[in-house]
């Protein structure tokens, strides 16, 4: 399972392999939880994906939220599916086998309405074959703590992660909510809890109103905003997480094309997840993988790993033609500004 030795299921040309701790991946592209299912296997070869991620499962069965569960917004969408679940036993017996029809590693997303629910799930899944890693969706209300989002509390996130890590033999990924003042703080709590990697981010809480009825469009009143609209926010948060922790980061939020994914890799994501874009075009992930391969090849890089975290923060040097500099006119040390302004 190590990066270097893992057999590659598909030849992308350049070396696109990455690793999340002990889990080696053929390429850095995987679906976002809730935006993927084995049903997609009838549309394209799921062996081409870096990994598969299940929809979040809960311990028991849940019916999910009332309709409407979806609404479209400028450049994005709101969803409040409410995580219907057939329960963990049905998952292991009926759903997980579906995933095992492909060689692609399967990451199972776990949810809970209390810290212990995550732990119980981890206990139940311990040793179940066909699970490459667990992703903890902590964007759930903690019913024991008054319904406040679990993921907003560093202490609760750390407790959830630590408990699951203690109970698992596979890598544990902590998936963070963006609805917080400091995502860096939650990232550090995840790392402290023993997470192998961090996924950033889940959806931003949003709302829409139907002006005919003056009622919220979404049955649950509020829903999660996803899609290209949130990409700038997600990218900034991934960068903040990257600076806060030393474990790998999985970037997620608004990625529709290779260029989006590359921005996440440049700011320091090791892996990217594609969510909403799979609805727009079910084969979006293939375009992302191919486009990343093209970029790596065109730039003459040895491997995708030479790209990750290469954000240039010395803007002047990065942007200014060597022989020309727009210099400060006040005698301060040169603070070069972009020279582009006259270039066309």
């Amino acid at each position: 399972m190590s990066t270097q030795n893992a057999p590659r299921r598909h030849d992308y040309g350049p070396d696109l392999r990455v690793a999340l701790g002990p889990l080696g991946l053929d390429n850095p592209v995987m679906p976002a939880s809730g935006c993927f299912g084995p049903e997609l296997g009838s549309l394209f070869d799921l062996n081409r994906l870096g990994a598969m991620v299940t929809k979040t499962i809960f311990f028991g069965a849940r019916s999910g939220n009332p309709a409407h569960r979806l609404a479209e917004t400028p450049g994005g969408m709101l969803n409040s599916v409410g995580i219907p679940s057939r329960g963990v036993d049905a998952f292991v017996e009926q759903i997980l086998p579906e995933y095992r029809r492909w060689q692609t590693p399967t990451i199972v997303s776990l949810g809970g309405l209390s810290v212990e629910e995550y732990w119980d799930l981890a206990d139940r899944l311990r040793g179940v074959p066909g699970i490459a890693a667990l992703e903890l969706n902590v964007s759930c209300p903690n019913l024991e703590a008054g319904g406040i989002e679990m993921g907003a509390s560093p202490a609760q996130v750390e407790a959830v992660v630590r408990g699951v890590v203690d109970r698992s033999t596979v890598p544990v990924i902590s998936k963070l909510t963006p609805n917080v003042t400091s995502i860096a703080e939650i990232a550090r709590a995840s790392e402290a809890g023993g997470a192998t990697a961090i996924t950033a981010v889940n959806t931003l809480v949003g709302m829409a109103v139907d002006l005919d009825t003056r009622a919220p469009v979404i049955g649950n009143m509020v829903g999660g905003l996803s899609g290209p609209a949130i990409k700038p926010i997600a990218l900034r948060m991934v960068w903040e997480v990257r600076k806060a922790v030393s474990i790998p980061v999985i970037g997620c939020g608004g990625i529709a094309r290779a260029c989006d994914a590359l921005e996440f890799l440049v700011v320091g994501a090791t892996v990217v997840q594609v969510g909403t874009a799979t609805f727009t075009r079910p084969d979006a992930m293939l375009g992302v993988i191919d486009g990343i391969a093209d970029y790596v090849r065109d730039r003459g890089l040895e491997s995708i790993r030479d790209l990750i975290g290469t954000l240039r923060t010395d803007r002047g040097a990065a942007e200014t033609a060597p022989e020309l500099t727009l210099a400060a006119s006040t005698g301060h040390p040169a603070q070069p500004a972009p020279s582009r302004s006259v270039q066309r």
Partner: protein
Amino acid sequence: MTPDISPADPALASDMVGSWTASSVRVRLACIPDIGRTEPTLEHAPVLEHVRVAADHVLTTLDAPTMASRAEPGQFAMLTVARGGEDSPVLPRPMALYDWDAATGRVDFLYRVFGDGTARMAAWPVGELMTAVGPLGRPFSLAETTASLLLLGRGIGICSLTALAARARARGVAVHAIVSARRPDAIVATDFLERIGATVWPVVDTDGSSDVERLRARLDAQLRDRAVDQVAVCGSERLLRLAAQVGRRLDARVEVSLEARMACGLGYCHGCSTGEKGLASEAPLVCKDGPVFLARAEAIGKAQ
């Protein structure tokens, strides 16, 4: 306005969509067996042509041979309305397969230009590729024994019924279609239905002919001597109730095609649940457990 509630039936619960109640009749919906569904495919399908068929109604033809070869009446497709370089609108649009030809690979969609997505569909440059996923969902059933089929379509709801009508006519089944719309210029599909030899009753709100009580009376009169073995309905709750009552009286199978907002159309996003509450697990998904459901009318007894 509190509706009558039928007692829980745990065996049926997960297959149950819900029940519509009116003064004297309750309509219960249930999933039909998952046998008619065909394997969907993803095609980058060129748009072949657009034909404006009525006020705000457009028929768009795609070249989608695999979909055309697998389609069954009542199935639908998810059509991406973001063009090549665009990433939004993020959601594809669910559209019934109006008509198709397995030999040529042509698939037709007939839709009302309603919002942004349908406006984009109608403006899609001819020749440009559109991402299309289908066929999707459980089709209408058509029993071997069916000799007479009644269709009730409201608005563009009729577009989910045309292919069933064509299949039925090809088998020699008699087809009667009530095509209901707000205004005469929103009546669509009647030419198609007439061409295949269906009896068509266009009715509209503007002259009151679409009124459900008038329809009921007319149906009562017209159907007196004829048997109806099957009823298919789409696009209106009132028509659904009428259909269920007719079906109950004539002992005919009634199927309804439902709509819901959809993201994936395949069954993995759980966006299109009928939203039924109080079930132990999730209510049926319109895209995967439907869009066609079985409808049954029940008289509401005193003893609940």
